[in-house]
């Protein structure tokens, strides 16, 4: 099932769809307010984009510099070519430390690698500690948004889930009550965890340390107690210098939620006392994207989610309609880059409105990428035969102006005299919920000719 079919199911529940749209639009408006308070906003975006371009062009150099500096600080560096290698490195580290329970803060990379099911299969309990992620984990769902993983759920549904798994009071869906219960539940997990896993927002080549941004402090408490901390990062998370960091932290939280900065911006430059800090640097298809000039900019993404919040299609179709780990505009381009066949409808789940490209803090030309992906879909023969045929015939007609005039004339004469049941038959997708325009007697060209006579 492609995006369109899944989206139409989401749209069918108009009340919920509008609730979803409004919730995300609210976040988008908060972001606008925050962005408009900084006179230097556009300058920040420009600099961020340039730092990313520079870094991606010298990624080999900066990755090695990062490794060298991290090792000097006593950090362990691992390289993973793909998801399988990443998951095995994690498992081996956990086994070597005899870890049975792991707490994990938010990381889209571990979602991408499907780490949770892999560890569960190997009898390791993995607990997502971000509240939204914990909710979807209990429900055995995937995040539907990269910053707001449970945005598709209403508080009543969260209440039901907690009733089932955390034994909360029946029908109590008061957010404060539920949050306190979640905190109690997670505290026990934090206190008894043998290891922690975090994602990485930024890895600083110059200092050899990583930075993790959260609002709940779950990464901090998670990494403070167990002796083993594993941080997983994609190769694109590198920034050159410490002084570059502030550009991104200023953009990240404002773009994501409209906050000036995330509540916790934690720097990890050494393991805790008597502990070990392991960093896994993962490629998993990123080098391929890097080598494609049309799409390499998508590696500039700092996972703020602003393009999801602004996307009029995402807001009305929900995260699951995309069928890829990351939904919305950024997910559509990354998904199409990774596996065009599996994600062939995603470049078309877009009106090319360009809001995403203008909201993006690192200035990724997202809509241009989706436009380019469409050409690749056609090139790969993945556009449906019917669509291809229609476009081919239309293009042919358009090369013959007399034929175009004639066909226009025929349609304008015939459609108005046909019975409504035929004009609005099943084949008329436009007419399902919309009237056709009123067909005029004469085309502009006919009127123009009469005028100059």
């Amino acid at each position, binding site marked *: 099932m492609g*995006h*369109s079919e899944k*989206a*139409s199911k989401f*749209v*069918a529940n108009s009340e919920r*769809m509008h609730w979803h749209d409004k919730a995300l*639009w609210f976040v988008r408006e908060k972001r*606008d307010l925050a962005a408009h308070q900084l*006179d230097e906003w*556009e300058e920040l975006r420009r600099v961020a984009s340039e730092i990313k371009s520079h870094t991606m062009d010298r990624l080999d150099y900066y990755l090695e510099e990062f490794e060298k500096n991290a090792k000097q600080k006593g950090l362990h560096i691992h390289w993973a070519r793909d998801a399988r290698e990443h998951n095995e490195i994690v498992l081996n580290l956990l086994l070597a430390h005899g870890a049975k329970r792991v707490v994990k803060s938010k990381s889209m990379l571990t979602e991408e690698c499907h780490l949770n099911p892999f560890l569960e299969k190997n009898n390791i309990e993995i607990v997502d500690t971000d509240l939204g992620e914990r909710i979807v984990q209990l429900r055995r769902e995937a995040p539907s948004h990269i910053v707001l993983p449970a945005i598709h759920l209403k508080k009543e549904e969260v209440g039901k889930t907690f009733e089932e798994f955390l034994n909360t009071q029946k029908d109590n869906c008061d957010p404060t009550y539920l949050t306190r219960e979640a905190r109690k539940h997670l505290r026990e997990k934090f206190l008894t965890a043998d290891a922690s896993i975090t994602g990485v927002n930024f890895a600083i080549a110059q200092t050899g340390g990583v930075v993790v941004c959260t609002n709940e402090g779950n990464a901090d408490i998670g990494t403070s107690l167990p002796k083993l901390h594993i941080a997983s990062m994609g190769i694109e998370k590198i920034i050159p210098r410490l002084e570059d960091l502030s550009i991104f932290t200023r953009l990240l939280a404002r773009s994501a939620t409209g906050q000036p900065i995330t509540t916790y911006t934690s720097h990890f430059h050494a393991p805790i006392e008597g502990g070990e800090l392991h960093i896994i640097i993962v490629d998993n298809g990123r080098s391929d994207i890097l080598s494609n000039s049309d799409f390499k900019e998508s590696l500039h993404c700092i996972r703020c989610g602003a393009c999801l919040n602004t996307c*009029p*299609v995402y807001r009305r179709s929900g995260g699951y309609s995309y069928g890829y780990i990351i939904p919305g505009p950024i997910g559509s381009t990354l998904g199409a880059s990774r596996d065009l066949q599996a994600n062939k409808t995603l*470049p*078309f*789940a*877009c*009106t*090319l*409105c360009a*809001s995403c*490209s203008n*909201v993006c803090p690192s200035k990724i030309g997202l809509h241009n990428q989706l*436009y380019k*992906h*469409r050409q*690749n*879909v*056609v*090139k790969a023969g993945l*556009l449906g035969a019917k669509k*291809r045929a229609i*476009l081919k015939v*239309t*293009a042919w*007609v*358009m*090369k013959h*102006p007399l034929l*175009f005039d004639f066909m*226009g004339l025929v349609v*304008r004469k015939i459609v108005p005299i046909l019975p409504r049941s035929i004009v609005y038959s099943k084949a008329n*997708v*436009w007419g*399902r*919920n*919309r*009237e*056709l*325009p009123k*067909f*005029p007697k*004469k*085309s*502009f*060209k*006919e*009127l*123009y*000719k009469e005028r100059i006579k």
Partner: protein
Amino acid sequence: MKIGLFIPCFMNELYPEASMATLRVLENLGLDVEYPMNQTCCGQPMANSGCYHKAKELAKRFLKIFKDYDYIVAPSGSCVAMVRVNYAQFLEGEEGFEQIKNNTYELVEFLHDVIKPTTMSVSFPYRVGIHNSCHGHRELGMASMSERNLPEFSKIKKILSLVNDIEFVTLRRNDECCGFGGIFSVTEEAVSVAMGIDRVNDHLNAKAEVITGIDMSCLMHMQGIIDRQKLPIKTMHIAQILAGDYDGTL
């Protein structure tokens, strides 16, 4: 100054009045306008569907037909964006491409940037909601966009403000997409219609009597919804307001 009038293919067939209004707006300003008879389609539907070769053939055709005009003017932000922004991939380096790239304008943009009229002797005594269609808005820069932190402006509002008796409404979402999106309107019918309904409702709630804009395609989509749901509002291409097509009744 010789102006080549570029009328989008679907407008030629379905919206002769808005097309004629475009011609009259230009002629009323004393401009020398010609409609090249063998023009058809700029190739945008093919390009947006990913059909590179078909789009390229039509882009080449467009270049041949229009390259000798001083200016090319069209009543569509979307088709103009196709020429100015998307043609580069098909025509870069071709003789005459720079000429059409630099001199193709959307109607309101042409008035605002090139002709700069200070009065318009027409009246439109209605409450109007402006639909900022995406390609004109974000690709051509017809107005400041809500995403960016740049000084506020609107070429559309500035030109419409020259019309007597006109009143503007304030929308809650000033520049959200209406969901037309070309082939999107059919391949993603459900989302497309949902977006269109939301857009029309924003104008209705703001008590607009007329939704106007520079792109007939967006207006056609919204009018289709208005007609099906029998809503008390109507769409009108901006050229028809500027040409004074208003006949006393809506």
